Structure formats: structure tokens, C-alpha cells
């Protein structure tokens, strides 16, 4: 039983949360019957009964472990109740208690009013400008990342092209092909070069695309001369080979004399009769076969095919032209902002 002698002890126990539900009810009844204790309105910290009576379980943690910053354990009950009211989460009983609290505590009423003013009003006058640009009619969208990758692949491809031995000369540099021929011409030759020698004999077949060799049409009744093996001049090696390329060159030449060379037939792969390929050369040629359908595409074919693929993927402008004026041929290619023009005389 609460009386004037133990009311303070009850209030302290209540403030510390040590009262049972029955004791809290008894305390509320006693306070209601003794108006002199209404001065507790000035001590809200000792009157959390209304706030505690509200079920704030919706705001309590429901996990086994929740970081302290994500719990509301230490929040003031008035704040919890006000936010619950603003969020419209109170039950009808809780609303009644809230109204009673508001009437009894003007400061809490002001707090609640401020909380309610924190509700943001949607600014309907703010609209997305020109939403038509967002609409679609179908088709396919290419992600920016894919365009970036395509551009990177294109750059890598051009770098690769430039680093190849047979790279096209777009900047006025002396053609590598001619340089190779010049180098070959300066090598010590082991036999005299005659008019009958096919052109490809003097070229390094392992370093560049094979040149189509078109044999002369022989008459059906023509009798081919039988080569006299005994009179076939034995090649003389004037100088010792200095490197592997020279060794290879020297090893090939005896077999490629006009008398014993076997011309490639139309149905035979051009590479079947070629010397052993290095792994790099083999991969390059197989890649060309797979990508371009041709084991030895010209540089212009490579550029055109790859640029067309890039253009179809990225939507960039693509244009390729070939023109022939007399003995001069012109190759023009444009991909987006990048364009090249190559002129050469046949």
C-alpha cells in the first residue's frame, strides 16, 4: 500500500524501473488521488510511466546482435513516442495515451509539433525534364563498358598491326617489305640469279605472306626437257652462315632451282610446301584463317574487316574505299574520327 511515508521510495523505484505492473498501477492510482503530487509535471524524468506504457516493440531490436548505434535502447521515451506518432505506428490505445500526455505536458506538445514538421512534403513541381529521351522503341542498347572495351581492343589491334613485320606503312616510312628485299639482295648469294629464277625464291617465305605464283600455261604437246642431274650446278657456299635466317636461306636454295622446283597447284594449300613454321607464325596464320577466312589477308583486308566489326558493335561511322588510277592505287578507311589513306604505285 502506498502512503505519504513511502511514496518517495515508490517514486524512486519507479524511476529506476524496479516496480512491477501492479505496483505501477497502484502508484498511478495514488498519484491521481493526490493532486499535490501533480508537481511531478515539472519533473518529466521521473514520469516516464506514460511513455513506458506504450508498446515500442516495433522499435526494439529483434536481432541477436545489433550494433549500439542501430538500437534505440537509450533513447528518451518521449522521442520514441513522438516518432511513432509521426510515423503513424501507434495503436488506438497508444494514441489515447499520447493525447493525454500532450494535454498534461505542453513541452511535449511542442516537441511533438516539431517532430511532425519534419515530415517532408513531396515537391510535385519538380519533374524530370524531357522524359521522352528516356523512352525506347526497341532495339538493343550497348553498354558504355562494351564500347570502351571495343575501343581498347581497336587500339590494341592497331598497335599489333604496327608491330607486325608486314605492317602497312601509313606514315611515309620505307616499307618493311622493301627493306627485307634490300637486305636479301645484299646478302652473299651462293649462286647466280638468272632470269628463270622465280621471284619467290629470293624472298624469305617464312616472314611474309606467300606471293601467288601463276605458272605459265604449257602446251599439251610440249615436251618438257629432262633435267640432267649430272650437269646441275652444285651450289657453292661462299660464306658461312652468320645466323639462323641465313642458314635457312642457304638450306632452301638448292631445292628451288628452276629445274626442280615444284609449282603449287591450285588445289594445294599454299603453306603445305612451306618450311616449318614457328609457333608464332602458325598461330598468326591460323588466327587469320579463323578471323578473316584467309590465311594471309592483306593489311587492307585486316583493317577493313576489323574496323567493320568495331563499327557494327559501337555504331561508329565506317567507310572504306579503294580506287585505282593508272598505276597508283589508293586505299582510304574511316572509323569514327580516325581515318587513314594509303597510296601506292603498282
Amino acid at each position, binding site marked *: 500500500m502506498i502512503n505519504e511515508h513511502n511514496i518517495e521510495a515508490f517514486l524512486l523505484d519507479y524511476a529506476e524501473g524496479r516496480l512491477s505492473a501492479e505496483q505501477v498501477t497502484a502508484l498511478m492510482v495514488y498519484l491521481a488521488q493526490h493532486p499535490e503530487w501533480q508537481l511531478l509535471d515539472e519533473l518529466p524524468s521521473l514520469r516516464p510511466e506514460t511513455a513506458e506504457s506504450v508498446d515500442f516493440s516495433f522499435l526494439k531490436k529483434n*536481432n541477436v546482435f545489433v550494433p549500439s548505434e542501430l538500437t534505440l535502447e537509450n533513447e528518451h521515451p518521449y522521442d520514441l513516442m513522438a516518432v511513432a506518432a509521426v510515423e503513424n505506428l501507434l495503436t488506438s490505445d497508444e494514441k489515447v495515451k499520447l493525447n493525454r500526455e500532450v494535454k498534461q505536458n505542453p513541452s511535449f506538445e511542442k516537441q511533438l509539433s516539431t517532430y511532425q514538421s519534419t515530415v*517532408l512534403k513531396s515537391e510535385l513541381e519538380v519533374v524530370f525534364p524531357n522524359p521522352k529521351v528516356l523512352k525506347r522503341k526497341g532495339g538493343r542498347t550497348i553498354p558504355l563498358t562494351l564500347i570502351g572495351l571495343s575501343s581498347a581492343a581497336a587500339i590494341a589491334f592497331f598497335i599489333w598491326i604496327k608491330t607486325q613485320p608486314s605492317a602497312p606503312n601509313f606514315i611515309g616510312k620505307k616499307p618493311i617489305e622493301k627493306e627485307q628485299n634490300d637486305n636479301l639482295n645484299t646478302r652473299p648469294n651462293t649462286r647466280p640469279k638468272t632470269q628463270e629464277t622465280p621471284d619467290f625464291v629470293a624472298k624469305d617465305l617464312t616472314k611474309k605472306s606467300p606471293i601467288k605464283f601463276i605458272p605459265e600455261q604449257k602446251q599439251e604437246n610440249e615436251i618438257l626437257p629432262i633435267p640432267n642431274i649430272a650437269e646441275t650446278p652444285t651450289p657453292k657456299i661462299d660464306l658461312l652462315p652468320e645466323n639462323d635466317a641465313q642458314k635457312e636461306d642457304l638450306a632452301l636454295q638448292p631445292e628451288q632451282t628452276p629445274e626442280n622446283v615444284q609449282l603449287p597447284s591450285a588445289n594445294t594449300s599454299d603453306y603445305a610446301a612451306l618450311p616449318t613454321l614457328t609457333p608464332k607464325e602458325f598461330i598468326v596464320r591460323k588466327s587469320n584463317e579463323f578471323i578473316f577466312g584467309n590465311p594471309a589477308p592483306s593489311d587492307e583486308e585486316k583493317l577493313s574487316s576489323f574496323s567493320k566489326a568495331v563499327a557494327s558493335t559501337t555504331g561508329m561511322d565506317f567507310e572504306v574505299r579503294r580506287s585505282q588510277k593508272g598505276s597508283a592505287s589508293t586505299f582510304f578507311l574511316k572509323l569514327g574520327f580516325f581515318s587513314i589513306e594509303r597510296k601506292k604505285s603498282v
Partner: protein
Amino acid sequence: MTVNDYNSCVDAFADGLFRFAVKCTSDAENARDLVQEAFAKLWTKIHEVDAVKAKSYLFTTVNNAVIDQSRRLQHRRKFENQLEVGSVTTENFDLKQHLNDALARLPEIQKSVILLRDYEGYSYQEIGEITGLNEQQVKVYIFRARKTLKEYLTNIELLVG
């Protein structure tokens, strides 16, 4: 999701998404870019995203982009906030303006949840799906956001007198 569904999403959500992005970034141009990127992303995944989930997908995309941006601008924003303190006078007191100022000072996650709650009327569960939080965390962040806004407004009122 069909092309018609996608275009319906544009009609239905573009404005709300734009308002959300504007409030989060305080930059209309940036907000427009974010909305365009969100719809472009939705378009690339048009066959994967269900039409019912499109709104949630769009807001999630924009919210993630906003958080990424805010992390990059965090230090600069703190400096700007320090410079703006104390600029309130009796003549320019406006609740809406001060509420916007207070909103701009909130941490990104609190700003996002309260905007989704008040602007779009999302439930706690839906906000959790968009922001990657659980329902309890959403409640706590909304509580903290409202408390911060309330304290800011109270301080402003005290300043104005």
C-alpha cells in the same frame, strides 16, 4: 518486362526518381544524369527485371549511385557545412528551406530512408530492399533522421527567437 512496361515505368517513376535524386545530390544536372543512367541500366536488363520490381530496381540504382558520389564528396561537403553555420536570420526564416538545409546535413543513408519514406511512401520493408538494410535498421535510421531534423529546427527557432 516488355518495351511497353519499360516506357510505362518512365511515365510513372521518372519524376519521383528525379525528385529523389535532386534531394539527395542537391544538383539537378547530376540528378538528371543519375536518372538517365538508372533507366539505361534498366533497359540493358529489361529481360531480367520484373515489371513489378522495376520501381524498386530504379530507386536502388539511384540510391547506390548517390552513396558512391557522396563518399567521394564527403570531405568537401563537411567543409561547406562548417562555412554555412550561423547564416540564419529572422528575415529569411522559412521552414521548408531550413528543412531542406537540415536534410542536406543528414548522413546519406538517413537521407535516403527518410526521402523514400516521405516522398514515395515506401514501407519499412520496401525501403530495406532498396537500401540493403533490414527492417529494424530502417526504423532506427528513420528515427535518428527525424530526431536530427527536429533538433536542427529547434535550434533554428531558438536562433530566430
